[in-house]
């Protein structure tokens, strides 16, 4: 899918871009500590060991291991059918692993429900961007905030003032994030009216809105035109500088090379290699997996 050039908002003038991509407001103070980038070695934010998943007779993920260092952008690549998206589903508990464990921020999470994992601060996006069509873009953003007072039934009876105040704060925060991803002018439109690329941006913004510790991005650049790819990469790098960790599945090698600190390669459900982007590019096994013999 290629966006038509008439979609002017996605083709900002270079000078406008820098103005629009102004830095984000500080994230919620509670989550601030973990999110400051740090140089000293630390426990990785996410570790998965020996993950196995069978679908009938097909072993989609076979003893896969992956690590995401705190404050890093970690890439996950592999040929089609390598099990990358399945691995994502296992990490976020959308599918239960048959074997293996997942440690997020020092806690075992493979037995948790997917919504509990999101509440702990690991939020995922989808390969084909999924937006809530008949809600406005702003409502899509507001939904993402965790632990809202107004999401409990009885609080809508007895804590209306507090709810209204929270909504005001979250609205402001949502508007700032929307501005940083260039969707401010669409805030009150239906999310279903967005183009494919804008949906990708909205998904990322929504993930950020939930104030996570780690964002899993499933092919953020797939089906997006080059200008918008730059904008998306720019966003990821900016948020990363502000302390956010990312795990990114991506087929576009330019994107992987320019973004990632470390890359894991998966082929036929197994780990093939791991290393810096340069090492991976020079690895003959990886080339073989991608190009065949």
């Amino acid at each position, binding site marked *: 899918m290629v966006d038509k050039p008439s979609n002017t908002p996605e083709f900002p003038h270079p000078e406008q871009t820098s103005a629009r991509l102004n830095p984000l407001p500080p994230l919620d103070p509670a989550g601030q500590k973990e999110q400051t980038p740090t140089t000293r070695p630390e426990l990785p934010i996410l570790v998965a060991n020996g993950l196995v998943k069978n679908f009938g007779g097909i072993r989609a993920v076979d003893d896969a291991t992956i690590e995401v260092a705190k404050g890093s952008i970690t890439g996950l690549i592999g040929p089609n059918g390598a099990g990358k998206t399945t691995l994502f589903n296992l990490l976020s508990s*959308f599918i239960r692993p048959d074997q293996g464990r997942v440690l997020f921020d020092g806690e075992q999470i493979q037995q948790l429900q997917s919504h509990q994992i*999101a509440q702990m601060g690991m939020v995922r996006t*989808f390969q084909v961007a999924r937006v809530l069509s*008949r*809600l*406005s873009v702003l409502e899509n953003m*507001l939904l993402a905030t965790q632990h809202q007072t107004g999401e409990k039934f009885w609080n809508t009876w007895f804590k209306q003032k507090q709810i209204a105040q929270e*909504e005001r704060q979250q609205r402001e925060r949502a508007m700032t994030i929307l501005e940083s991803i260039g969707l401010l002018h669409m805030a009150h439109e239906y999310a279903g009216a967005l183009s494919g690329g804008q949906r990708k941006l909205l998904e990322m913004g929504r993930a950020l809105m939930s104030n996570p510790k780690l964002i899993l991005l499933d092919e953020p650049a797939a089906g997006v035109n080059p200008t918008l790819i730059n904008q998306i990469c720019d966003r990821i790098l900016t948020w990363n500088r502000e302390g956010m960790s990312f795990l990114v599945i991506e087929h576009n090698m330019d994107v992987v090379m320019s973004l990632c600190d470390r890359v894991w390669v998966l082929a036929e459900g197994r780990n093939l290699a791991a290393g810096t982007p340069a090492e991976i590019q020079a690895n003959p096994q990886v080339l073989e997996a991608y190009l065949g013999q």
Partner: protein
Amino acid sequence: MTGFSLADFLAFFTPGNLVVLITLTAIYALFSLGLNLQWGFTGLINFGHVAFLTLGAYTTILLSLKGLPLILAVVVGALLAAGLGLGIGISTLRLREDYLAIVTIGVSEVIRLVALNEEWLTRGALGIPIPNDLLPLGELTAPNFASRLFMVAIWTAIFAVGSWQLWQWMRRPPDDRGKPIETTSPPAIPPAKWLWGIGVGLTGVLLYQAGASSLLFNYSYKSGLMLLVVLVVALVYWRLEVLVKSPWGRVLKAIREDEEVAKALGKNVFWYKIQSLMIGGAIAGVAGAFYAWNLTFINPDGFIPLITFYAWVMVVLGGSGNNAGTLLGAAIFQIYFTVTRFALPALVPLDDARLGALRLMVIGLLLIVLMMARPQGILGKKEELTLGR
């Protein structure tokens, strides 16, 4: 065949008949509001909504026969209906959504058959007549002038709030999605809205004066019941509007749109669906109590699956996911049914059974035409249909 005369037709609009019409509309509106929460806002396909109505009706009546105060009996009925929602939810919500549709229709039949066969409890097909003193305000045979005035005051207050809501709706811009209005002067009201506004407003005035005059000059328990059920509908409508506009309602709508997204954003989808089923069920349970009081008699024949689909027609007619639309749908449906019951025999030379079938055929046809011309329902938003997923 007798000629159809306008006088015959107009003779129908006596305050007594209109009170019955208002009461029926309000009972079905309450019932459908519960379904609208489940289907319109949460996207749950509930084809057995009548189960909640049955449970609410039988519980209220049986408990009040045992001497429990009416208000407590209704509350227990609503709680049991909510419990049924919990049971259905726990057993089916982890399955795919079409299973929910099948299970709910099955549950509603099971409940009706239990009511039919457990004769020691429900007297089976014989049914239970409700004595006058167990009807709400039933012992109030001849209220004094002051209390009648008080009731008219409540009636007037509801009418005033309703009129205000109607006016607000007319002034709202068509593309309202919570956007602050930029212009200082509100936009002009389009002619179609004037037409609807005046039509609904005039009908409202007619119904209001019928209700008021029956409360004031011609009091019977029917007038009292009308006031009570309309009051309950108004309160439930108000609470539902607060709920669906709260963050809680936003989660429900998110589940309707794409539950995977709601999960990925940390929402306990399962629990929200259960809440929706329980609250919608409790509302239908309360509707069941009024349903029984209005008939002053219950037997299992009153709770056939067709009642569920009446509610579906009302919700879809007005526009799914729109509480005001559900009220409008219930009103149009009931007005159609009551008026044709009266006018059709004068127009068409058929016996009663065939006329009944004809009325259903016509409403089916109307629904098909509406769905072709306006698939989003009367108050639904057209642009929502053109959105990609």
